[in-house]
C-alpha cells in the first residue's frame, strides 16, 4: 500500500498564559482568543509516496509544531491529519539515555522505550555497537563519556531504524568530522529506504541533497512549496532582504545634520564619482571618487578636528580618520576638506558616511548621509569589504633574479 499523508486545514493555537486543565473537560474545538499564539494556521497539504519533504523557515515559523503534529506528538487545535503508514520520528537524539547505565544497557533501555522485546533488541545490538564505534567504553557508564561519544551512541541507536514514514527534526550532524560523514551517509541511506521523509532543517545543503520537495513556512503559513533549489533560494533571498531592511531602518536614524554648539556646523557633504566627477549617492566601484566637506568652526580652537567615518550597513567600520581643522581653513575662515580616492575600492553595499566636528573629545556638530556602491562584476559567494584594484605587467628579469 502506498504511504500518504493528508493535512486538511490544520491549525495549532497555543493559549497565552499557559494551560489551566480545561483540555480535560471541554469537548468543543477551541477557537483563538485574542492574543493567543497561532503557531500553525490552516495548513492543507498532501504528501505522496516517494516524496522527501524539507521544511525551512525562521525560528518560530511553526515548522516544528507542524512536524510534531504529523508525528502524532500533539494534536491539532482544528483540522485533520490523515496518515497512511507507520511513522517513525527522530526529534532529539539521546532522549532516554541513563547516565548511570553503560552504553550497552542504554541500548536495551532505548529499545524498551520503543516497545521492543528483548530478542528484537538483541538482533540489532551488535550493529548498533559497531556503528557507535566506542570500543571498550560501550561497557562503561555513560557518565564517563565525552559529549561527542554520547552523541555517537545516541545516533547509533537510531541508525538501524527501518521507517515507512520518517520524520527528522534537525538531528543531522553529530560527533567529530569522521563520524559526522558516517552519520550523514547513514541518514541518506535511511531516507532512501523511507517511503516518505519529512525533514526540518536550517541547513540548506542537507535539504537540497536529501529532499525532492521543499516547503517554506512563515508565521504558521506555507509561503512557498516547490523544488528544493527554487524554495531555498527564495528563502535565502528573503532572509537577506529582511535583514537589510531592518539594518536600513537602524541606519536611517542617523541621517541628518545636527549642530550641538553655536558656531559649529557641517555645511555640506558631497560625494563626486565617475570620470566626469558628478555628485552622486549611487557610486560605481572602481571609479575615481572625491569627497568634499564644508564646515564652519570658531576660529582659534586649536584642538579641533574633522572626523570622517564610513560604516557599512552591517556595522562594519571601513574608514575612520580625524583631520586637524586648522590645516583646512580657507581664506573666508570656513573649513573646506577634500578626500580623494583614485579608484573607489569599496565593495558593493550600502554605506553611511559620518562627518563630525570635534573639539577634543566632544562632538560639536555632525552630518550623516547614506551612499550605495555598486560593481558591474561583483564577486560571488559573500560580501567583500574592499575591491582591491590590481595591475598586471610582465615580470622583469630583476625580480626573477631576486626570487632565485
Amino acid at each position, binding site marked *: 500500500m502506498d504511504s500518504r499523508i493528508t493535512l486538511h486545514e490544520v491549525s495549532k493555537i*497555543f493559549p497565552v498564559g*499557559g*494551560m*489551566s*486543565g480545561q*483540555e*480535560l*473537560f471541554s*469537548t468543543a474545538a477551541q477557537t483563538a482568543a485574542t492574543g493567543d499564539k497561532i503557531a500553525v494556521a490552516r495548513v492543507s497539504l498532501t504528501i505522496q509516496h516517494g516524496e522527501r519533504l524539507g521544511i525551512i523557515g525562521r525560528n518560530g515559523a511553526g515548522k516544528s509544531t507542524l512536524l*510534531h503534529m504529523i*508525528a*502524532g*506528538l*500533539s*494534536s*491539532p487545535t482544528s483540522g485533520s491529519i490523515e496518515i497512511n503508514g507507520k*511513522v517513525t*520520528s*527522530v*526529534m*532529539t537524539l539521546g*532522549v*532516554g539515555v*541513563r547516565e*548511570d*547505565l553503560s552504553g550497552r544497557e542504554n541500548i536495551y*533501555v532505548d529499545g*524498551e*522505550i*520503543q*516497545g*521492543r*522485546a528483548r530478542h528484537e533488541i538483541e538482533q540489532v545490538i551488535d550493529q548498533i555497537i559497531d556503528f557507535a564505534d566506542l570500543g571498550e567504553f560501550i561497557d562503561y557508564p555513560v557518565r564517563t563519556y565525552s559529549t561527542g561519544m554520547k552523541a555517537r551512541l545516541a545516533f547509533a541507536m537510531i541508525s538501524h531504524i527501518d521507517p515507512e514514514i520518517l520524520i527528522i527534526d534537525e538531528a543531522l550532524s553529530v560527533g567529530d568530522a569522521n563520524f559526522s560523514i558516517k552519520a550523514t551517509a547513514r541518514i541518506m541511506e535511511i531516507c532512501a529506504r523511507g517511503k516518505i521523509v519529512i525533514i526540518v532543517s536550517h541547513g540548506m545543503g542537507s535539504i537540497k541533497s536529501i529532499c525532492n520537495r521543499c516547503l517554506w513556512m512563515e508565521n504558521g503559513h506555507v509561503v512557498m512549496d516547490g523544488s528544493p533549489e527554487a524554495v531555498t533560494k527564495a528563502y535565502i533571498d528573503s532572509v537577506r532582504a529582511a535583514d537589510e531592511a531592518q539594518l536600513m531602518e537602524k541606519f536611517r536614524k542617523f541621517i541628518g545634520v545636527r549642530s550641538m554648539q553655536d558656531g559649529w556646523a557641517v555645511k555640506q557633504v558631497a560625494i563626486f564619482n565617475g570620470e566626469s566627477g558628478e555628485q552622486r549617492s549611487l557610486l560605481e566601484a572602481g571609479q575615481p571618487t572625491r569627497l568634499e566637506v564644508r564646515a564652519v568652526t570658531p576660529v582659534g580652537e586649536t584642538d579641533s578636528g574633522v572626523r570622517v567615518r564610513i560604516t557599512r550597513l552591517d556595522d562594519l567600520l571601513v574608514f575612520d580618520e580625524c583631520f586637524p581643522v586648522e590645516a583646512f581653513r580657507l581664506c573666508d575662515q570656513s573649513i573646506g576638506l577634500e578626500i580623494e580616492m583614485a579608484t573607489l575600492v569599496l565593495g558593493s553595499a550600502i554605506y553611511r558616511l559620518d562627518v563630525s566636528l570635534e573639539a577634543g573629545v566632544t562632538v560639536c556638530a555632525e552630518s550623516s548621509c547614506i551612499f550605495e556602491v555598486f560593481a558591474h562584476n561583483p564577486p560571488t559567494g559573500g560580501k567583500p569589504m574592499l575591491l582591491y584594484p590590481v595591475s598586471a605587467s610582465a615580470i622583469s628579469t630583476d625580480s626573477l633574479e631576486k626570487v632565485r
Partner: protein
Amino acid sequence: MFGLNKQDIRLAFNLFKMNVRDRFLGSSLGSFWAIANPFFMLALYTFVFGFVFKVRLPGAETTLGYVIWLISGYGPWIAMNEAILASTTSVVGASGIIKNMAFKTELLPISAAFTGMISLGVSLCFLLILITIEGNIPDWRIIWLPLIVALQFFFIVSLGLWLSAINVFVRDLSIALPNILTIIMFVTPIFYPITSMPPLVQKLSFANPFYIIADAYRGVLLDHKPPSIVGMGYVFLLALTIFFFGLAAFRRAKGFFDSAL
C-alpha cells in the same frame, strides 16, 4: 480492549521495568531496594508495636495480633499510596519521551501504578510469615485475595489516569497529594479499628473505597470471611466509572501535553 493492543501491553511492561529500575539507578544494590525498603519498614513496625509499645487488640492475647492486624490493612495502603503518587507524576516525569516519541501515553500512569505491586507483594509475604508464626492460618477463602488485589489496582489505575493528566496542567497536585493521602489515611480506619472512630466517620466509611479494600484484606487474611459482595461491587462500579471518564479525559488532554511539558 480500550484501544490497546499486544504491542502496547509489552510497552507498558517495559515502562514498568524502567520505573522500578530508574528509582534505584546508581545505587549499588539496585532493584534489591524495591524489596528491601518495604521489608525494613514492616520489620520496624513489628518491632515498635510488637515489642516496644506492646499494643493489644481488644480480646487478643499476644501483641503480634495487633501487628498482623495493622499490616494487613496498612501494607495494602502503603502500596496504594506509592502507586497513586507514582502514577500522578508519571506523565510529567516522562516528558522527554512524550516530546519525542508517539506512543499511547495512557500507558504511563497505568504502568506506574503497578510499581505498587512490589511493595504489596512484600507486605503480603511478610504478613504470611507473621500469620504462620501466630498460628492463625487463613482458610480456603484466601482465593479471594487475587480478586481484591486486582480490584485495588483497577481503582488505582482509574485514579491515576485523572491525576496524571491533571498534574500536567496543575503541577501543584503532585506537591499537595502526599498530604491529601495522609489525611485520607487517618480518616480511613486503617491504624485503628472502625469501632474507635467517631460515629460520623464510621457511617461514611462504608462508602469509602479505601476502607472497603482494607477491610476486604483483613476479612480474607484474618477473619476467614469472604469480602462483602456489595462493597466490592460498589468499588468496582466506582473504579469503572472513574476509569471510563478518566481514559476519555486523558485521551482528550494528551494532544496538549506536548505544549504543557
